[in-house]
C-alpha cells in the first residue's frame, strides 16, 4: 500500500512537472475578452493620455503629472489572470497592462519586461512560480574565476527568437501589441541591472565577494553582458524601429557596495552598454532605474549618458524614499525626474499614507525644469492595493500640476 501511494505521488509529481502551464484565457481568444480600442471613449482617453505622457519631454504641459506604478504582474492578477500568465504569456501581460493603465488613467502605453534577461544564453535555468517572475534555479554556470575567461559575447544572430527565449518572449509581446493594441505599443529593451545579472551567473553572495577578490573576473562577465545586451537592444530596434531602454542599478546600491565599487562595477559598464546600444539603433528613450538605496552613490548618476528623452528614477535614500527635492536639485537640469512613493507600502490599506507621501514628493519635484513623473520605488507589488494606486493618481490630480504655486 505504501509503495502504491508513493508510486501515485511520484506519478502526479512527474505529470505536474511535465505539464506546461496553460494560460487562463487561450491567446487566440484573448483580444475578445477586452474592450476594443476602436471605441470613442478609449480614443478620447488615449489622446489625452498621450499628451500628458509627452509633456515632460517637450515642455508643453497638460493637465497633471503622470503616475507610473511600474505595473507588471499586478496588472494580470488584479484583472483575474495570474502571475504566470504575465511572465509566460506576454500577450496577456501587455493587454492587461494596457487595460490597467486605462482603468487607472495612467500611461498610454503597454509594456512587458522582466529582470533576468538573456541569462538563459549563459546556461542558467529560469522558472516562474505562482508569485515570482523568472528566477534562477539550480547551479550557477560560473563557478570559479577561470570560467569568466570563457564567457561568451553574443552577436545579434545568436539572439533571434528561435535561439533566445528572452527575445522570443519580448517580441511576442510587441507583435501582439502591434496586431491588437497598436496605439499602446511600446517596444522596450530591459537591460535591467548588469551587476545583478552577473551576480546571478555566479551566485549573488559570491559575486559580491569577487568584486574585492576577483575584480578582473567580474569585469569580464560584466563586459560580456553589456555586449550581449547592447546587441539585444539593437536587434529589437532593427525590427520595431526603436526601443525604449531601461537600465538599472539594483543590486549595485549603497547598502551592498561602497560608491567606488558601484562606479567600477555598475556605472562604468552601464555607460559602455548605453553607448553601444545607441550606436546599434537602440533608444532614443533611456530610463535609468536605480532601485534600492542610493544614498551614497547618487551623485555619480548625474553623469550618465543621456539623450533628449532620459528619465532618472531613484528608489530609496537609506530606508526612506529618495527625496523629490534632492532629486530635483541634483538631476533636474539634466533629465526628467521620476520621483517615488514607497512601493512596499502600496500593499497596505492605508490610502492616506500613499496620498500624503505622493503629495509631499510632488510638491518637492513638480516644477523640475525638465519635467517630472510620479512613480513607485520599484515595480508595484503583485498584491498592490488598488486603493493605493487610486490614492497616488488622486495626489497627481490635486498636486501634480506644474509650477510652484
Amino acid at each position, binding site marked *: 500500500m505504501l509503495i502504491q501511494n508513493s508510486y501515485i505521488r511520484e506519478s502526479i509529481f512527474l505529470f505536474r512537472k511535465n505539464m506546461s502551464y496553460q494560460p487562463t484565457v487561450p491567446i487566440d481568444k484573448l483580444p475578445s475578452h477586452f474592450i476594443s480600442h476602436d471605441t470613442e471613449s478609449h480614443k478620447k482617453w488615449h489622446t489625452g493620455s498621450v499628451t500628458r505622457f509627452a509633456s515632460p519631454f517637450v515642455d508643453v504641459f497638460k493637465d497633471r503629472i503622470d503616475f507610473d506604478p511600474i505595473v507588471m504582474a499586478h496588472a494580470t492578477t488584479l484583472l483575474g489572470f495570474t502571475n504566470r500568465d504575465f511572465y509566460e504569456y506576454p500577450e496577456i501581460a501587455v493587454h492587461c497592462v494596457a487595460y490597467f493603465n486605462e482603468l487607472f488613467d495612467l500611461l498610454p502605453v503597454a509594456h512587458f519586461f522582466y529582470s533576468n534577461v538573456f541569462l538563459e544564453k549563459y546556461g542558467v535555468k529560469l522558472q516562474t512560480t505562482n508569485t515570482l517572475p523568472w528566477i534562477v534555479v539550480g547551479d550557477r554556470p560560473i563557478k570559479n574565476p577561470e570560467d569568466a575567461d570563457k564567457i561568451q559575447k553574443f552577436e545579434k544572430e545568436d539572439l533571434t527568437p528561435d535561439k533566445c527565449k528572452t527575445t522570443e518572449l519580448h517580441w511576442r509581446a510587441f507583435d501582439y501589441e502591434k496586431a491588437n493594441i497598436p496605439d499602446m505599443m511600446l517596444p522596450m529593451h530591459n537591460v535591467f541591472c548588469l551587476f545583478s545579472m552577473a551576480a546571478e551567473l555566479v551566485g549573488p553572495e559570491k559575486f559580491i565577494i569577487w568584486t574585492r577578490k576577483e575584480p578582473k573576473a567580474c569585469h569580464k562577465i560584466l563586459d560580456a553582458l553589456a555586449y550581449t545586451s547592447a546587441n539585444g537592444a539593437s536587434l529589437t530596434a532593427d525590427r520595431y524601429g526603436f526601443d525604449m531602454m531601461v537600465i538599472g542599478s539594483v543590486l549595485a546600491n549603497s547598502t551592498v557596495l561602497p560608491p567606488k565599487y558601484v562606479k567600477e562595477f555598475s556605472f562604468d559598464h552601464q555607460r559602455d552598454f548605453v553607448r553601444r546600444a545607441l550606436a546599434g539603433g537602440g533608444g532614443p528613450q533611456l530610463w535609468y532605474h536605480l532601485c534600492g538605496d542610493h544614498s551614497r552613490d547618487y551623485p555619480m548618476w548625474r553623469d550618465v549618458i543621456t539623450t*533628449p*528623452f532620459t528619465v532618472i528614477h531613484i528608489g530609496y535614500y537609506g530606508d526612506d524614499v529618495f527625496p523629490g527635492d534632492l532629486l530635483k536639485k541634483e538631476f533636474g537640469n539634466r533629465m526628467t525626474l521620476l520621483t517615488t512613493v514607497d512601493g512596499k507600502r502600496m500593499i497596505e490599506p492605508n490610502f492616506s499614507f500613499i496620498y500624503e507621501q505622493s503629495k509631499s514628493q510632488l510638491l518637492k519635484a513638480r516644477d523640475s525644469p525638465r519635467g517630472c513623473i510620479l512613480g513607485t520605488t520599484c515595480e508595484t507589488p503583485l498584491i498592490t492595493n488598488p486603493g493605493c494606486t487610486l490614492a497616488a493618481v488622486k495626489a497627481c490630480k490635486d498636486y501634480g500640476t506644474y509650477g510652484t504655486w
Partner: protein
Amino acid sequence: MVMIDVLVPKEIENALAQKGISADMCKKLVYEAEEKKAKLINKVTGENLAKKIMDNITLYVMYAPAAPGTHPVTAYVIKKVYSHKMRMKNLVYTVPEEVKDWWCAKDDVQTVRGQFDLEYMGIVRMAPTLTCPKCQESYIEEDIAAKPVAVAEMLFEKKRA
C-alpha cells in the same frame, strides 16, 4: 586656403541637395577645417570630422584622404554628411572616458565623452558628444544625430505646432 582637392561623390551631392546645401559649400567646410585644424581626426581609420553651423542646421562632414598613406595629402573624398537642427548651447559636463580613436586636431589630444545642452524651439535637452578636453569643441556623432536628436526635433516640431 590650403591647396587641396575635395571630391564629392554623386550620392553625397544628392544628400547635400536634400538639405539645400551645395557641393561647393561642403568643400569650403573642408578647406576651412584643414586651414584652421578645426576638426577631429580618427587616428585608426584616418577619417576627419568637421562641422559648420549654418542658418538652420549644423552640418557635419566626414572625409578622408583620397589616396590613403600618401603625404602630403593632395585630395580628400567626402565619406558622409549629416546634420541636426538643434543648436548646441553649452557643454554641461565631460566624463574622462577615453574615446580612443578620435583626437582633436588643434590640440592633439584624445576626445572625451561630453554631454551638451541642445536647444530647439525653446526646448533644451542634452545629448552625448565627442569633446576635446582642452578647447571643449564638441561634435555630435552620426548615430546620435540620426536618432535621438532627430526624434527630438520631430517631436518638438509636432508638439509645438
